[in-house]
């Protein structure tokens, strides 16, 4: 009886106190949405830095972009990120979590921080560090390649077939065709631990752990375990990890900017970098807004269903 009354009081409280509790947060979030809408609106104008007023220009900015080779190169690079960053990071993160889970003595508490610490670093630090590692002339990668890997007899033959000898080391960040993979590798170094953490958390769910233990007692091998128990029960974790990494790779900016500024030429440039260049180097603000709107629409395709399912889960709809 008393509790009924209390719950009623709390229900009544919700109107009275909504203002105090919610108003500060809503104030900031409304500004955030206002700015978002404003960016979308301005992408339909001819606004440039220094122009007194902006005129409605319809789809001109978008048509302009779609006629540019550079823009399509950026889109292509973002797709490369989606394929060569999201998928390998997810799989490697899962593989690490899986190995930690099946290793009999629990190495996990000792190994986990070693994979996870890059998550705490700034992308700028990662960029500075890895642009030295992948520097073609005096970088660490080519140094290790020339002084250690090319000294190993069998490896030397393999690398020779790939066209890598002491006199023709890979061009890494200077190679227009492959520089993007160097950047992707740096990002993988930073994000694989994060993917691993999410998978480890999924392994920890009690139901899955019981199933695994039961199967191991029945003598199931690692592969059987993977195929019949783990993968079917991990769909949710896979979905979360791929969505988060995909959202990240659609708006990636820092690491590309620090490592190559989009170069050589615009071989590694992604949409977010072009947006920054268009708005703040070329002063074409409306064009910047248009590119931002494109990034926004692409991420929204992933975010909207993701948010929808998350809310369903929390509120038990």
């Amino acid at each position, binding site marked *: 009886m008393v509790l009924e009354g*209390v*719950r009623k009081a*709390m229900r009544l*409280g*919700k109107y009275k*106190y909504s203002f105090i*509790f*919610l108003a*500060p*947060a*809503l104030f*900031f*979030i409304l500004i*955030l*949405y206002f*700015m*978002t809408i404003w*960016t979308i609106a301005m992408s339909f104008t001819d606004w440039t830095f220094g122009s007194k007023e902006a005129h409605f220009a319809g789809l001109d900015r978008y048509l302009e972009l779609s006629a540019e080779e550079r823009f399509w190169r950026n889109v292509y690079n973002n797709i490369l990120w989606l394929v060569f960053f999201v998928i390998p990071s997810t799989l490697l993160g899962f593989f*690490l979590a899986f*190995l*930690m889970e099946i*290793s009999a003595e629990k190495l996990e508490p000792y*190994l986990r*921080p*070693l*994979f*996870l*610490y*890059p998550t*705490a670093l*700034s992308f*700028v*630090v990662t*960029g*500075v*560090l890895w642009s*030295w590692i992948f520097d073609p002339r*005096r970088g660490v990668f080519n*140094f*290790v390649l020339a002084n250690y890997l090319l000294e190993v007899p069998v490896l030397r033959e393999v690398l020779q077939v790939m066209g890598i000898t002491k006199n023709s080391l890979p061009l890494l960040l200077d190679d227009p065709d492959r520089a993007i993979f160097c950047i992707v590798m740096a990002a993988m*170094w930073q994000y694989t631990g*994060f993917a691993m*953490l999410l998978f480890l*958390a999924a392994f920890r769910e009690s139901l899955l752990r019981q199933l695994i233990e039961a199967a191991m007692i029945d003598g199931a091998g690692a592969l059987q375990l993977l195929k019949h128990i783990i993968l079917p029960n991990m769909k949710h974790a896979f979905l*979360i990890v791929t969505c988060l990494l995909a*959202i990240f790779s659609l708006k990636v900016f*820092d690491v590309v900017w*620090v490592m190559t500024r989009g170069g050589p030429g615009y071989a590694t440039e992604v949409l977010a970098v072009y947006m*920054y260049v268009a708005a703040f180097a070329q002063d074409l*603000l409306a064009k*910047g*807004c248009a*590119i*931002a*709107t494109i990034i*926004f629409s692409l991420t929204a395709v992933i975010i909207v269903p993701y*948010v929808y399912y*998350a*809310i369903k889960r*929390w509120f038990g709809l």
Partner: protein
Amino acid sequence: MRLTIYTIRRMLVYFILLFLAFLWIVPMYIMVITSLKTPAEISKMQYLNPPSSPRLQNYGEVMRKMAKALFDCLFISIVSTSACVFIGACAGYYLARFPSRATIPLTFIIMFASFLPYQMILIPLTTFESLLRLIDTHHGLIFAYIMLNLPLATLVSMTFFLTFPRELEEAAIIDGCDPLSTFLYIVLPASKATLLSTAILVFTSVWNEFLIALVIGGTNVKMIAPVVAELKGCYTALWNLQMAGSVIGSIPPLILFIAMGRYFIRGLLAGAMR
């Protein structure tokens, strides 16, 4: 027979794990040892060997460029983190405890905002902040970071309060406490762990942020990330100085990661599963 296969497989698992862990730790190792070398030692190109005698002057030299940024960045990160955590906890508590028809749409709006690409608000933010003369000021950056991290802080607190036991609050209300005092004096002190996780999450993201800092920051106010990026241009091929700068820029988040790993991971998971 079965035992040997089992042992071999286990050895293989260990080997792969340790090998990958080694690959993951090497970049950090190189970063730290290189930051202690002399340029002459670097030009010998023995990147994997530790320095013959650690040279701390490297740190002294980059600190001349970074001291101000460290101070500014620390101040801005701490202020915006505290504001985010407090405002976010209020809103998260409200959404979790007082369900109404507006709750689900509101949660959707907030969660969507938490994923918003920074590019989407970058141009209006600079335009408005330059109209209000907030560019290159502490206020301007603090405002931007509160706005950008608040949705995440709200959601992380909300997911926590959804699982927080109600009994404590009910007891407080029976004793005649109104919701606001219940929240301030009963709920907040009992949820220190969540507040700490949220704070670490927000602090790390503000400290490491680059794009907004690049555009809104400048000469009066510097954030650490653009300064570290600048070092790359200032000290071309002087990797000892670049690495010393990178180490300095990574210290606060790494300290949080090492000293409060449990909360760091909790925040990271809550932020991801939001």
